[in-house]
């Protein structure tokens, strides 16, 4: 029994991706089209049928150019969701809403980027100008002091989390070791065949204390695309339908972009709490109904409070969950079976949604047994989003 008109109305029916690399050697537009055409082919849907598009910032590939090159004639829905990785799940939610309301019958979602070879999110040099627009003023609280990378912003939360709950750098390391273990057996992963040990994690150089190099995700080039249509039509298509059981975005009190430092408590991710509550409400499911999850892992420390926000463990007890190895291969709740963004690639979270699709289809290289429902989360520390995908 589902609790909303969104839940179960739409399904992911096609999946496409390029290879993941450090230098794709071709344009982002081409990557987007390669992934989109592969997804449509996977679905068995003709490009001319596409009526909607959704992506998220900071994707530089405009949907109208994809529409033009696909030969679309009747595009009635398009959106680009703000806040980067925090939006990673939101285009699927937007697409499902467009399909559920009948605005668009077939929607393509995509994320294409030459992040590693063309620009780098971790450079620390972003050229904020003096125009008094909000973004320039906001970063003015951090840039003059040199607090200017995603790792540094996450580090501030992580240090407080460690202090409050007694989590350690080794706990963060156990997250990295587990995902690199999955990556080691995923031929699509950049770190295929390259597992790491906890000792190597601890010995890796500091990026921003308390974060070691091996706490930080990769920077990557690549693209992922998916096709969403109605659950009804999905029954007649060539792939096993992956039902969108719930989707939500999340903003809550004291919300900022990576710097929500002014809340009474900074050890949780309350915007993810908003997403969790809504996903469970829409789907009528709880944590016990999930078999696996893709937990956004741009930096390992934020994996822990996400497990807590979704009720997969008690507040402050994610470290015990991790120390028990529940999250790892053979554990009771393996996460990031593709190798995560630390191990497979950093396609801004969209490659994580793709892994959830494969887990539901039963085609993942590190397949979890009897998967019915998969949780996917998006970037943390920012306005965020999440999905529950599952079997029909």
């Amino acid at each position, binding site marked *: 029994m589902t609790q909303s008109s969104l839940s179960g109305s739409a399904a992911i029916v096609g999946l496409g991706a390029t290879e993941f690399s450090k230098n794709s050697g071709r344009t982002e537009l081409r990557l987007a089209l390669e992934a989109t055409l592969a997804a449509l082919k996977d679905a068995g849907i003709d490009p001319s049928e596409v009526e909607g598009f959704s992506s998220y910032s900071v994707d530089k590939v405009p949907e109208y150019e994809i529409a033009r090159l696909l030969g679309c004639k009747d595009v009635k829905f398009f959106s680009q969701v703000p806040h980067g990785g925090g939006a990673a799940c939101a285009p699927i939610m937007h697409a499902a809403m467009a399909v559920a309301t009948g605005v668009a019958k077939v929607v393509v979602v995509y994320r294409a980027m030459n992040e590693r070879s063309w620009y780098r999110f971790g450079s620390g040099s972003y050229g904020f100008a*003096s125009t008094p627009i909000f973004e320039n003023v906001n970063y003015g609280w951090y840039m003059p002091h040199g*607090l200017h990378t995603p790792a540094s912003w996450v580090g501030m939360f992580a240090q407080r989390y460690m202090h409050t709950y007694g989590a350690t750098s080794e706990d963060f390391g156990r997250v990295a070791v587990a995902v690199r273990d999955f990556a080691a057996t995923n031929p699509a992963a950049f770190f295929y065949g390259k597992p790491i040990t906890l000792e190597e994690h601890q010995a890796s150089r500091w990026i921003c204390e308390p974060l070691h190099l091996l706490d930080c995700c990769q920077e990557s080039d690549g693209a992922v695309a998916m096709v969403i249509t109605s659950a009804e039509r999905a029954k007649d298509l060539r792939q096993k339908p992956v039902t969108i059981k719930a989707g939500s975005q999340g903003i809550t009190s004291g919300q900022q972009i990576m710097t929500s430092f002014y809340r009474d408590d900074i050890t949780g991710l309350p915007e993810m709490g908003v997403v969790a509550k809504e996903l469970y409400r829409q789907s009528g499911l709880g944590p016990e109904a999930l078999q696996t999850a893709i937990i956004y892992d741009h930096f390992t420390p934020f994996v822990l409070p996400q497990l807590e926000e979704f009720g997969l463990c008690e507040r402050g007890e994610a470290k015990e969950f991790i120390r028990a190895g529940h999250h790892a291969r053979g554990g009771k709740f393996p996460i990031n079976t593709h190798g995560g963004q630390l191990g497979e690639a950093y396609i801004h979270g969209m490659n994580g949604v793709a892994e959830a699709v494969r887990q539901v289809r039963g085609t993942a290289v590190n397949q979890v047994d009897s998967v019915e429902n998969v949780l996917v989360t998006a970037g943390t520390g920012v306005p965020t989003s999440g999905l529950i995908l599952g079997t029909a």
Partner: protein
Amino acid sequence: MADSQLLTDVRALVGREYGRVYAWDEVNAPMIRQWCEIMGVDNPLYTDPLFAANSVQDGLVAPPAMLQVWCMEGFHLNNYAPGSTTENPYEVLKLIESYGYGSVVAVNSELTFKRNVRPGEKLYYTTRLDSVGDEKTTGLGTGFFVTLVMSYFVEHKSGDEEVGELLFRVFKFRPANPKAAEAAPAKVETAPVVKRPKPGMSDDTRFFWEGCDAGKLLIQRCTQCQTLRHPPAPVCIECHSFDWDSVQASGRASLYSFVIMHYPEVAPFDHPNPIGLIELEEGVRLVAGLVGVKREELSIGMPLQLEFKTFDGELTLPLFRALSLPAAE
């Protein structure tokens, strides 16, 4: 000790003059306008013809600090204007490097001006290797201070006129330790002194920065419900009143959280760079650099004291010092 052959070879180059490097374009209004916009310069003398005509300058002039800009290479590396010399004015650095002094850091960039240049004038510069000092050892390592002087001229049919000069000094050195070598910028041609990034300011936040300039840490206060807030905002989060004033923080604070930045090493910051999330005793938090703290003594909850430091002669930032330690860094 420096190799005697190196010293002989280097001394032979001192005093050498290198040929002209021409400007791509004559001094022009669009370039001036864009430069002023990017640099945040709003003096109408550079951009408003009417204002300039009525000033003592009797017409538009280019900002003096743009002198170096006019003769820069294009967007692509070494893409100098036609007719420019193909000699390498930095050849002495290659020579020194061949003796194992692999690192370089820019230390001085000083402009002097003889007169303003005006739109329509065409510039070039020549370079002279002014001096190479004796071998010295600094905190970075052992090497040589190399000083180049670029003289800027305006072309005239009646004879060219010198309008200004750039003294550019680098330290070409063998690093004391490999980490310092990584920290040094690799490319000397484009290594001007990098300043601290200035904060964007708006009507909602300007009071804070003006307070810093005056040596006061100001916290915004709602005059309706007295709630303190930071970062500043146009409206109270509690009662939505737009009326506010500010109170001066006592400067007593504690460390709520912290990070130590190691990588990437972005100029002009020192690394490792300890940065705190500071809880003021008034109850609001802000992010600020930490000074006078030792890594092993950093701990959440430790007492801190506010101080101010002015960077680059123009940006005053609040910093926090550990109270339990002596004032010396």
